């Protein structure tokens, strides 16, 4: 059978154009033209030559989806995400396909994963969402002609404190030993963020907007300089208003001082991380709450991460009010691992409880994340 693709597609049919088309282009065009059987044939043909090719596997999924073979397509995309967990497009398509089968929870989880492949997208998505509700509020005020009379309780936005590893300078990317899944940094910038007192113990904070270009973090050797990565443009963010746009970095103490300071700084960071986790839980802020857990977090009872997340979500969202207080916090930190033990005072609309909790934590990038949560 002779396929005259350019004609069928109404292309200004130059032979050269046809010659320039890659097999993938041909498959795409066949899909767009609705010639799905032909597209599938092409995919299978090409896959014989290169069975591992990600794009071809992806296109196969697309063809299956368009053919209405939803289960097959789900299988294809699922396998793709297993071998290529960074493929946000595959997660997206999984989400769409699950939704078409009415599996909305699975769909939601997949779409969320699509965003998490690019933590900055997830943060941007969350910020966009917050801005949209804020804009909605203003627009309601305009609609009801009560401009200027609306009380302001602004949402807390997320300012990213670091960039994804692959966007950093190549040298540093190499220096990063582990393939870190970058985690969005939830840096509270709203004034109500608790201001930890230990200002002096903090690493020199550079706020990019407040510091002249010449005096960025890179110019000031930060005390956190135990790893080469710390000298990267990864900037920490002033978490409190009490650290006003930090002026020119102070002359740095010698390297010897840096070590104990680092430990103290870590301890403060861990403390803040625990408090932020408790606060997110109290505020039912699921994004920040779940963001406090590392990708390597082990859910209890051999539960899958997805199942655990959805369980937590259901439990937390269903409460009218939650209050989580942390008492007698004790922190032990060695290297990039830490254990936080404390008394957890939990109170919700239907339950009040007091327990001893242990959080095992790991430092990923600039952030301390929970890897295990136990009650003793």
């Amino acid at each position, binding site marked *: 059978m002779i396929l005259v693709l350019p004609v069928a597609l109404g292309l200004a049919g130059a032979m050269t154009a046809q010659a320039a088309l890659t097999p993938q282009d041909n498959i*795409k065009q066949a*899909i*767009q033209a609705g010639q799905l059987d032909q597209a599938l044939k092409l995919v299978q043909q090409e896959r014989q030559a290169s069975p591992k090719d990600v794009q071809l596997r992806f296109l196969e999924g*697309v063809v299956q*989806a*368009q053919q209405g073979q939803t289960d097959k397509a789900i299988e294809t995309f699922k396998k793709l995400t297993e071998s290529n967990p960074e493929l946000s497009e595959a997660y997206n398509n999984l989400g*769409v396909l699950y*939704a*078409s*089968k*009415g599996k909305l929870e699975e769909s939601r989880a997949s779409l969320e994963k699509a965003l998490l492949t690019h933590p900055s997208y997830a943060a941007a*998505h*969350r910020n966009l*969402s*917050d801005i*949209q*509700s804020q*804009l*909605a*509020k203003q*627009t*309601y*005020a*305009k*609609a*009801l*002609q*009560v401009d200027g*009379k*609306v*009380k302001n*309780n602004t*949402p807390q936005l997320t300012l990213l404190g670091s960039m994804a590893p692959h966007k950093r300078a190549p040298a540093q990317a190499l220096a990063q030993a582990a393939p870190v899944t970058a985690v969005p940094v939830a840096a509270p910038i709203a004034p109500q963020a608790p201001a930890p007192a230990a200002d002096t113990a903090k690493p020199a904070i550079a706020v990019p907007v407040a510091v002249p270009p010449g005096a960025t973090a890179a110019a000031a050797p930060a005390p956190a300089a135990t790893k080469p990565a710390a000298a990267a443009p990864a900037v920490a963010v002033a978490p409190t208003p009490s650290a006003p746009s930090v002026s020119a970095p102070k002359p740095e103490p010698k390297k010897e001082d840096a070590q104990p300071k680092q430990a103290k700084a870590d301890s403060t960071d861990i403390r803040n991380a625990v408090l932020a986790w408790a606060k997110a839980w109290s505020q039912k802020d699921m994004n920040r709450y779940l963001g406090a857990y590392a990708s390597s977090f082990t859910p209890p009872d051999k539960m899958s991460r997805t199942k655990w997340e959805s369980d937590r979500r259901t439990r937390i969202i269903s409460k009218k009010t939650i209050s989580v207080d942390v008492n007698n916090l004790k922190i032990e930190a060695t290297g990039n691992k830490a254990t936080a033990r404390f008394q957890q005072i939990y109170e919700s609309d239907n339950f009040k409880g007091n327990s001893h909790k242990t959080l095992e934590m790991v430092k990923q990038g600039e952030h301390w994340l929970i890897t295990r949560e136990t009650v003793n």
Partner: protein
Amino acid sequence: MPTLLVTTFGITVWLLSDRDHLPASVQDSFKAAPEPMRWKLEFEPSATAAVINAKDPETLVRQIYQHLGEGERAQALDTARAMTTRFPTFQLGQLLYADLLNISSLQPIEGVDLDADTKPSAMRRLEELVMEAKRRMTRPAPQALEGQVPAAVAYLASQQPYLAAVDASRSRLYWFANRTGPDGRLKLELLKETYVSIGINGVGKVKEGDGKTPIGVYFIQKNLPGATLPDLFGSGALTLSFPNAVDAMRNKTGSGIWLHGTPSAQYSRAPEATDGCVVQANAEMEDLLRLPGWRMTPVVIAEKLDWIASGQVPTVYTQFQPTLDQWLADRQNGDAEKLKPYYSQRFERDALDLSHWWPKLAQGVQGPRKAKPLEVVSVLHWNDGEETMVVTMSDPNIRDKRQAVYLRTYWQKEAGQWKLVFEGPT
């Protein structure tokens, strides 16, 4: 404050469900059988900016609902954004945009936080906007009105270029061009149909300050340019002939019932918001003011307009026409004694009765025979318990521009007979 989202989104759901009436509970519309979710294939991310080519925001609101009905939420949001940019004082558009923003957010807000003293006015405004949305979205499509005319019009001579009608229950003004041919068969073309606001207390004006819009047949008198009026009147006003002869007989009071524009802060006002005037968007008002020959346009104002098929003569007119024709003939013959029985004992003009007016009326028809009979310009009628006919005529014999060319008569039925209750120049 209750959830705005639910309040207004409720309308959305209802509008999309193609129902004629609001469901008993909006909840019902959520119980529809779940449909499998569809998808569209996209190879390259497409950023489509909404194209705004409608000149009135109501069309845009309709487009937005259409997008929503097709599951194109992003497009609906884009259109709403563009609409609010183009028509920032169209509060209904802002409400829709706010709702769409809110449903697009992961954490929708549950209404805005307001001071206790602002809350009542905001809640009232919300109710008004919801009502405006309902009125605008449930108005009959212009196509559905094709071939129909307001039943109040019995005859319209081709020299009378327009006819206007207001349906208060639908918050709608209809502006027709008269396409009646030489055969005299009524033919109207709908030039414009637009949202209007009426009196804050509805219709049926009785006395000055009652906040109601009068019901009946009125005529446009003159134009007051917007520049000469306070901001409240927007781009200008056309004054109406309230109170008319029958209103005066019934001792109705009030004045200054106009058709006018909107203040600068509001593209449109609530369905029931005025002191009795009929108010439309400035752009619509300007369109009317630009029309040549709007003077003397009859304006029928009804709580609910009755429509009849174009070309069908209302029965009431068939019954009335012989009386009118005979009166015109007797008048032409100048026989005062024959004319006398046409005049009701209730006749009233400028608060004076028939005993005052009859000598003058009789004198007017006697004397040298006139070359041409009066020409009927329009016949309109309405029934508010009493059946009334309004006949406007022109006198082709008058050449002197200083003299009144038009004569208007009001007729009512008395013991099965049509009688003149008013006759006077206009």
